[in-house]
């Protein structure tokens, strides 16, 4: 943000970047990476008998 100050006046904030009004914002596709695999759990050993 650029601040333009003049003594006795309200500071004016001039934005450095603004969206281009002529560009329709795109919906970015949701990430398609597979979720990290959970570690395989070994079945608990049950004492025989």
């Amino acid at each position, binding site marked *: 943000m650029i601040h333009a100050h003049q003594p006795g006046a309200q500071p004016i904030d001039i934005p450095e970047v603004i*969206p*281009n009004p002529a560009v329709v914002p795109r919906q970015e596709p949701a990430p398609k990476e597979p979720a990290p695999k959970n570690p395989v759990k070994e079945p608990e050993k049950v004492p025989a008998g």
Partner: protein
Amino acid sequence: MPCGCKLEDLLAILHDRAPAKADAVALQRRRVEHGLLSVGIKIHELGDGSQFLSLVERLGGALRVLESNMYKHAQASLCLVLPPVGNARAAILLLECIEHFIGSTLFGNRKIQIQVCSPGRLNPRRSALLAIGFYLGSDTLRRYRCGDLETTVSRDHRYQRGQRLVIYDAGGDFDRGFEWWERVGSGNDRLIRRELPFENGRTDLLTGNGSRLDIENINLLATLLIHAERQGYWNELGKQFEDEMLSLLDRHLLAGLVSAPWVRSDGAEDLDDTTFFSALQELVAYVFQESARVKKTSGIHFSEWHELPARSLGILYEMQSLLTKYRTEVIRQSCLHEHGGRT
């Protein structure tokens, strides 16, 4: 300029956290789409660079990956030079892989400056059209301060590239292994060469905190302009684009901007950046004023707004309309060839 790494090595590392996208890049890495140019990317990190440490380490360490290259944005802690790929989509995917790996965004990030590199050096006038076209077509309208475009080669003894949006290459590595389309016969037949016709030479654009759209637009603009310069397949379309772009600027009394020095060539005697900066500021002031005007008049119902011809809506809409027209035409003509037709 040396590439910091081989694409195979980079993809193998990125595969750990972004397997699907890394595989997609590997598949498309040499694929040229519709005869458009290959795309190289440089990432300038304006923060402390800590998020890239692990990636740089795995690629072989800073000495090998970063310090072989003296070029970077003056405020950057590091500049990662990515190997070129065959199309804009693959370049975007590659950046998305890196986003996954480092765990933070690269697009639209104020601490990241994306430099888009296109093969072939455009002449100064076409470099001006590339820069102006990029600026008007971007999804973000930016103001620039003196120093925003300062790099380590702005004032050095050897290159003296000045502060510019458009920067020529500094020699070094150049990957020619991408298709180049030409017209042969009476101009109706397509010849696909396996190599680019340039032995080296690039025209780069410092987008600032760039977006996916910026990469796609620069790729389209650079293709049209370099084909017009080197009589490539898109020569006629490129020249038509130039004429339309010049008349667009003329309608808005901005045609004089094209004569400003938007790029500094080797051996240029004038080291002064002010003529370029004045031209850039004139463009920026016009566009910000235009944006405010559009905002004021946006009371019109949305559906009516989109029915109005671009010309009556102002320069930003006209530029979008021009980009859409030429993107559509490139795809249409290239598909016509794929299906056995002639263009």
